């Protein structure tokens, strides 16, 4: 029996089934990943970086309000 080539109908069917299960699982992983990326990036992703759309904590606001170099 060769290692890669199934030599019997049963082996051929088992191989095809396992191949499809593998492909289905791989596809599921990719789909879950893509779905996660889409869910977490919904809306404008740059808003978070620009600080828009977020409530700024009072202590952070105070820090931002301080003039440059103050407190050094």
């Amino acid at each position, binding site marked *: 029996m060769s290692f890669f080539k199934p030599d*019997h*109908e*049963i082996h*051929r*069917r*088992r191989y*095809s*089934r396992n*191949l*499809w299960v593998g492909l289905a699982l791989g596809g599921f992983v990719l*789909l879950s990943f*893509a*779905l996660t*990326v*889409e*869910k977490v990036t*919904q809306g404008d992703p740059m808003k978070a970086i620009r600080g828009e759309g977020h409530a700024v904590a009072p202590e952070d606001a105070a820090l931002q309000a301080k003039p440059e170099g103050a407190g050094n």
Partner: protein
Amino acid sequence: MTDTQIESPVSEPGASDFVQLLKPRVMSLVVFTALVGMIVAPAHLPPVTAFTAILFIALGAGASGALNMWWDADIDAVMKRTARRPIPAGKVQPGEALGFGLALSVASVLMLGLATNLLAAGLLAFTIFFYVVVYSMWLKRSTPQNIVIGGAAGAFPPMIGWVAATGSVSVEAWLMFALIFMWTPPHFWALALFMNADYDAARVPMLTVTHGKKVTRRHIIAYTLLLVPVSLALGFTPIGGMVYLVTSALLNAGFVLGAVMILRRDEEMAQADKYKVEKKVFTFSLAYLFLHFGALLVEASLRAFA
């Protein structure tokens, strides 16, 4: 015995046998109607979410098909039309089909819920329950009204597509449901007229078996006439329009004409031409549904470009 090769009739099922368990032809109709329900909805899903939703609505429908084949294996073995299905053909063991169907049902409901919303997932779960328990286990073997009520299972996909996109049910979603629901009886009774021997042999109480073909012919025209206002009503909702109304009017005229022709025939005439008219009406009914949803899709495209 000189042959060293062991031939076993029940062996390893191949991937294609499991695909057959999902009833791919029914699945294609589910994909199409659910997709239309999702596209014509006023809210739109991001592409990966939309793809995931359609995939798992289709797999949920496929899972209910596998569970139906598990439960109906005894009937399928008797009927010529279904004798080559994987379980009666000995390719897949009943337990394998049951496990496959249950696992896929749970996975598809969970994934639809995670990708879209709980209402859509709940509707998919109800559809699977309705098709497997209410239709397959209960109605199919107990009443000639089996396909009238059981038709609801096939009518849910566009509503699920709509709910996946919008998160709620509306008049449009109910009318899409009603269109498939009212279309199912004349469609299946036209099939039953020329497949009667099958249902008779399997002791499935189809209307043709319990009340005869004459009564079935009358039922076909009655349900086709009831289908007309339902299908036209959809044209007056925000998802309808002139293209839909004209398409629907023409298709309804064709379907009613076919139903009248079926009514005017008797068994002698039908046997003489091998159920030519009944077969034509059955094929036409498939186009009827496909083109109605196609027209909705055209209306949505026109709105998008307007």
